[in-house]
C-alpha cells in the first residue's frame, strides 16, 4: 500500500474501512496508522461520509408491498393452472361440455387463447389481429363483385331505356 493507492481508495469508497476493497482493506488500515498524510485524507473523507449518513429514507409499508406481490403472483399461478387444465380438457366428451354454461366459458377460452401468458404462444394474438384483415379483404372482394353485377344490370336498363326512347321518338315522327 502506498499513499497514491490509499488516496484512490478513500476518494472512491470513503473513510469507512468496511467499504474498502476486501483484498486491500487490512493493508490500508495498517497504512493509516503509520502515515500522517493518510490520516488527514481519512479525516477529510469522514466529514463527507458524516454528511452523507444524514440522508435517511423512510420505506413505505414493505409488508403491504410483499402481500400485494404475493397475491398477484398467486392469481397469475391460478390463471396459468386454469389455462393448463383447459388445454388438457380438450379431450373431454363434448356432451359433458354442453352441460356447463357455454357462453362465458367460450369467451374465457377465447380470451385465454388469444392472450396467453406464455411468450411461446405469441403467434396467437398475431393470428387474432390478422383475422379482421382477412375478413375485411374477403368482404371487400364480395362487395366489389356485387357492385359490378349491379353496374351490369343498370347498364342493361339504360340500354333498354335508350332503345325505348328511340322507339318513342321514331313512333312520334311516324305520326307526324
Amino acid at each position, binding site marked *: 500500500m502506498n499513499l497514491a493507492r490509499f488516496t*484512490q*481508495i478513500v*476518494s*472512491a*469508497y*470513503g473513510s469507512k474501512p*468496511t*467499504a474498502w*476493497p*476486501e483484498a486491500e482493506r487490512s493493508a490500508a488500515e495498517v497504512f493509516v496508522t503509520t502515515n500522517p498524510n493518510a490520516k488527514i485524507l481519512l479525516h477529510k*473523507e469522514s*466529514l*463527507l*461520509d*458524516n*454528511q*452523507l449518513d*444524514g*440522508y*435517511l*429514507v*423512510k*420505506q*413505505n409499508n*414493505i409488508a403491504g*408491498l*410483499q402481500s*400485494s*406481490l*404475493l397475491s*398477484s*403472483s*398467486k392469481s*397469475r*399461478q391460478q390463471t*396459468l393452472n386454469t389455462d393448463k387444465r383447459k388445454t388438457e380438457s380438450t379431450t373431454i366428451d363434448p356432451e359433458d361440455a354442453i352441460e356447463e354454461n357455454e357462453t362465458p366459458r367460450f369467451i374465457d377460452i377465447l380470451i385465454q387463447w388469444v392472450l396467453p401468458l406464455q411468450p411461446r404462444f405469441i403467434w396467437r394474438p398475431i393470428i387474432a389481429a390478422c383475422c379482421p384483415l382477412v375478413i375485411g379483404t374477403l368482404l371487400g372482394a364480395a362487395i366489389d363483385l356485387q357492385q359490378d353485377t349491379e353496374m351490369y344490370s343498370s347498364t342493361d336498363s339504360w340500354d333498354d331505356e335508350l332503345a325505348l326512347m328511340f322507339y318513342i321518338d321514331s313512333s312520334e315522327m311516324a305520326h307526324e
Partner: protein
Amino acid sequence: MIQLQAGSIQAYQQLLDKHLPLINRYIIRMLDNANEADDITQEVFIRLWQKAQRFDPRVARLSTWLHQIAHNLCIDHFRKNKIDQGNEDSNLLEDMPGGCEPQTALLQQRQHLNIKQAMNYLPERQRSAIIMCHYQGLSNKFAAEVLEISVVALESLLSRARKKLRENLPAPTE
C-alpha cells in the same frame, strides 16, 4: 431459485423476504420518491416471477440480477418522466427521533435536504454507484457487476461522484 423457476409460491415468498427491503431502499434513493419507488419495486419482483426461467446462476447472483433490473427500470423511469433533479418528496425524510430539540430537528432537516439535492444533481450512474457502495453497503465487485463496468471504472465513477457531492454540499462543520 430452482423452486421459483418451477413456479413455487413459497420460494417466491422467501426471495421477497430476503431481497424486497434492500431493492426497495435502492429504488427509493434512486428515484427520491417513495410512492413511485413502490411501483418500480413491484415491477422488479413481477419480472422476477415472470422471467425466473431466464435467470442463469452461472452468469450472475440473484441479488445482482435484481439490482440490475431495478437500476434499468430507474433509468427508464428517468427518461420517461424526465425528472432527474429537484424532486420534492417529504415522505423521504426519516422520522426525527423523539424528544429532539426543535432547533436540532430543523438543522437535521436542512442537512437532509442539502444532501438530497446534492444526490439529485449526480448523474444516474454516479448516483447508483454511491447508493450501492455507501448506503447499501454492497461490495465494489457487486456494484461493478450491476453497472456492467470494471472495478477500476467503478472507482473512478465513485471518485467523481464524491467530488461532485463535496462541491454541491455546504462545507461541513467539524
